[in-house]
């Protein structure tokens, strides 16, 4: 597959490689974006939710009289209401079950307990305050280790025969060979790591307008969802028994103010709003406020890992072993492909030629909200890469080896691709040494090490951290990947109009990734129709072809491929039409962007626009009119973007504050559709890597009370905390993707945290520090400085 860095098309056509200004921007810069909370329908009512202050409690009584007495409050919905329709529980994406509204007990603080329906938002809020609930607190389980001890209170008493809090055990790799390798190893390092709960905190929270039309028996839900078709099918399956039928359900995902995985799951609020709309027969709007969002949905991570690396004295890695305890909250509602309860964690062998590996994981129930797969994690790749990149640095420290040198020594080499990893992945393409070398050259690594040595003499704390990650995106091939049984293909449907313009619809759903521009650029690349003349649509299940949505950086690898294939099908038909128009055989024609011409007689040609017109006015006899194609793309493999990041930090010895002085990110996502958009994704991803590394954390006390449940304490970095990101790229095309492209949206969130941790540890390694848990708050760092006697 050739690498494309210089665009082949003109600026007018604007195909791949052009930094086309985004086609969606004109509405956003005018404040004319169309988000869920902007929707106003006639007769629309507002819903607000009563939430539990307790993490684990029996519900003794819910009294609604005071609420119902407030003028404008129309109804209060409880678990008992929904139980009548058997809607009080629903399946999760991992085939567990979770409550929509509780009947017997609540299982996490801020759990939905009742819903108030009112004529306006303000009255609904008053209604919520007026609902009275009597609780009997129960023993709370927040520590997943304690949850798995014999004698721990059993949380899921709703599951018949369940006698513990263990959800599942998962393992992959060769346990015996790994044990043997560790037993025989010259060097072994081991490191415990905890990746705390964090929250996507997209600036738009979650919400919906559920609009049931009783006359037609038709439900439309305008919803903050990254996966509208999957939602439609889930609703049809879950609520089929109350009369909702898939052809009469329409999910519309309008403009979404950031998803990051937090808008994939089906939250109770959506289901209650739908139920309310069906029962009342009016549109119901539910939009959560920020504290509800932070406390009840969209969380990510919460992995307790122990990573071990076996190696030879010269630094050659021989085996990897990782054991993890996953805290899933009270239900496994993680949005993973169904065969992967731990997502794609088995990418944990990383960028290294590790011949032997084994990893196992257990998941536990606790009194916390359900979830886990979000925050640009690529299905747990953030956790996996944190483990391997941290333990690699621990090994480097143990061997007193430069971390770059250790990585070069162990990288999978370019000539080893496609590379079969010890845990079963076939990496498509990569050049890991190239990326790391470029990062080192760009940032001046050698000079920085000199500077560090000088500063150390003066007692100044400066660190340099490296992360060389391999990502795994584009779920995924149908033999392995499905969500609730629905295979993870994705789709594109392209139709060319008589005047040569086009409309293209997809099964994905952008929440800011620029699909209206990038997909148009693919069509432009393949057909020569200017991207500005290709209208792109996503998100309306009535019109878009079926797809699994946008998350885990899958859109370019799946729908992007489908787009290219569909366009090529159109080109095939266009060739036939051109042959007919030019009265030659197809074999006499050659294609250059935007037209077919006769070989040897280039003046005899037909543009795609002429061909399109002919498709409706002069198509060949025996051929259908029209010029369109659909493709449902089943990717043959995932794609493996990669990169090397280098971070430079300075530590304030008085306060423990970590300042990121420089950050160089070299990324490789194969062939690039729009460099400007890719850079934007990297900038955003880096910022969502900085945040968990230094600032963000959601935690719980012994009673299950949340800490970090508002923006007061959940510290989303501002422009002042965020450094100026420096980016560069290498281009190693994907051999199996029609465009040679890979996904990229989450690479930076995967690669940045280990680079920053490695830098801070590096700043303190001469004092014997080996590891620091994230977030590396000033207090945490200062405690270390104090312990080591170097605090100011």
């Amino acid at each position: 597959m050739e690498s494309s860095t210089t665009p082949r098309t003109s600026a007018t056509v604007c195909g791949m490689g052009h930094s086309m200004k985004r086609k969606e921007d004109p509405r956003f810069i005018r404040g004319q974006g169309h988000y869920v909370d902007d929707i106003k329908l006639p007769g629309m009512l507002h819903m607000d939710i009563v939430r539990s202050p307790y993490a684990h409690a029996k519900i003794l009584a819910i009294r609604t009289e005071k609420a119902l007495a407030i003028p404008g409050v129309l109804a209060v919905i409880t678990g008992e209401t929904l139980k009548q329709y058997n809607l009080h529980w629903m399946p999760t994406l991992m085939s567990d079950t979770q409550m929509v509204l509780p009947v017997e007990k609540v299982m996490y603080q801020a759990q939905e307990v009742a819903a108030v329906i009112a004529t306006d938002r303000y009255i609904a809020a008053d209604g919520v305050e007026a609902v009275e609930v009597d609780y009997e607190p129960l023993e709370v389980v927040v520590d997943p280790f304690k949850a798995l001890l014999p004698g721990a209170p059993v949380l899921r008493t709703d599951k018949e025969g369940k006698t513990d809090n263990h959800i599942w055990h998962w393992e992959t790799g060769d346990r015996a060979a790994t044990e043997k390798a560790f037993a025989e190893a010259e060097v072994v390092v081991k490191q415990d790591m905890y990746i705390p709960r964090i929250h996507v905190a997209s600036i738009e929270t979650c919400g919906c307008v559920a609009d049931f039309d009783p006359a037609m028996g038709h439900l439309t839900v305008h919803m903050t969802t990254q996966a509208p078709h999957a939602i439609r099918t889930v609703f049809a399956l879950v609520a089929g028994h109350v009369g909702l039928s898939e052809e009469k359900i329409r999910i519309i995902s309008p403009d979404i103010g950031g998803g990051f995985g937090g808008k994939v799951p089906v939250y109770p609020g959506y289901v209650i709003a739908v139920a309310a709309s069906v029962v009342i027969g009016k549109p119901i709007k539910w939009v959560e406020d920020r504290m509800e969002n932070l406390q009840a949905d969209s969380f990510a991570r919460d992995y307790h890992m122990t990573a071990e690396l076996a190696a030879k004295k010269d630094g050659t890695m021989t085996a990897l072993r990782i054991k993890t305890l996953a805290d899933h909250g009270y239900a496994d509602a993680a949005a993973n492909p169904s065969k992967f309860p731990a997502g794609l964690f088995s990418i944990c062998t990383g960028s290294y030629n590790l011949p032997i590996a084994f990893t196992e994981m257990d998941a536990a129930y606790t009194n916390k909200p359900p979830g886990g797969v979000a925050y640009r994690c690529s299905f747990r790749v953030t956790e996996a890469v944190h483990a391997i990149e941290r333990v690699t640095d621990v090994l480097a420290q143990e061997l007193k080896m430069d971390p770059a040198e250790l990585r070069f020594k162990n990288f999978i080499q370019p000539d080893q691709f496609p590379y079969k990893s010890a845990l079963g992945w076939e990496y498509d393409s990569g050049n890991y040494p190239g990326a790391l070398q470029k990062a080192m050259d760009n940032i001046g690594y050698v000079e920085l090490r000199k500077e560090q040595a000088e500063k150390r003499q003066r007692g100044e704390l400066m660190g340099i951290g490296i992360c060389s990650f391999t990502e795994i995106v584009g779920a995924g091939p149908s033999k392995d990947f499905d969500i609730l049984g629905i295979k993870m293909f994705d789709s594109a449907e392209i139709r060319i109009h008589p005047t040569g313009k086009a409309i293209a619809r997809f099964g994905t759903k952008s929440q800011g990734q620029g699909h209206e521009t990038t997909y148009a650029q693919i069509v432009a690349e393949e057909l020569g129709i200017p991207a500005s003349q290709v209208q792109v649509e996503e998100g309306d299940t009535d019109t878009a072809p079926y797809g699994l949505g946008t998350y885990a950086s899958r859109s370019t690898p799946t729908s992007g491929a489908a787009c290219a294939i569909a366009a090529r099908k159109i080109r095939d038909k266009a060739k036939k039409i051109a042959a007919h128009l030019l009265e030659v055989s197809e074999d006499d024609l050659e294609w250059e962007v935007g037209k077919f011409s006769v070989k040897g007689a280039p003046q005899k040609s037909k543009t795609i626009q002429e061909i399109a017109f002919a498709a409706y006015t002069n198509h060949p006899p025996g051929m259908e009119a029209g010029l369109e194609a659909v493709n449902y793309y089943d990717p043959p493999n995932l794609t493996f973007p990669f990169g090397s990041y280098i971070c430079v930090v300075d530590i304030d010895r008085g306060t423990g504050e970590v300042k990121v002085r420089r950050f160089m990110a070299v990324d490789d996502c194969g062939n690039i559709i729009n460099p400007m958009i890719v850079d934007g994704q990297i900038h955003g991803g880096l910022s969502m890597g900085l945040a968990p590394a230094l600032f963000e954390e959601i935690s719980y006390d012994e009673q299950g009370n949340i800490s970090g449940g508002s923006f007061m304490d959940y510290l989303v970095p501002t422009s002042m905390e965020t450094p100026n990101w420096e980016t560069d790229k290498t281009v190693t095309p994907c051999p199996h993707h029609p465009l040679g492209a890979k996904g990229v949206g989450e690479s930076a969130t995967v690669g940045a945290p280990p680079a920053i941790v490695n830098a801070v540890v590096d700043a303190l390694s001469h004092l014997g520090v080996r590891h620091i848990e994230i977030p590396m708050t000033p207090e945490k760092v200062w405690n270390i400085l104090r312990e080591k006697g170097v605090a100011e």
Partner: protein
Amino acid sequence: MADHNINIKVNGTERKAQVESRLLLVYFLRENLSMTGTHIGCDTTHCGACTVLLDGQPVKSCTVLAVQADGREVMTVEGLETGGQLHPIQNGFWQEHGLQCGYCTPGMLMTSYALLQHNTEPSELEIRQAISGNLCRCTGYVNIIKSVQHAAAKMHADQTEVKGGV
């Protein structure tokens, strides 16, 4: 609890209404006036998605009562474009990819617009400080800064042109 009659000049036009005391300015704009360009992103006055100009100053409209704005002037993102022409700050965001999901964008635009009204050549630090009350999750702020610099350069060039190119 009595309602109040208010008259607020929004983007140059007087808008009258009868409102509850507790109605927040952001809801007045979004619901009473159906001007949904101004967004809500939090409940603790942190995110800045609700930023509008109140008598020319950028403020968080979620933390202002509509009644407080009675008799005063409000400018929202809908007021940036004039006579069908985008304001340089809007064009700057477009040219420099200063937005992705677009949700924080109106707030960023209003804050940046206000900055450029009194500081025509802001440094990177000054831009970062000015937008430090506006959270963005998508862009990492890098291109937002470039967008503001783009607009500043354009406005500066326009002014120089007007002055006769000296």
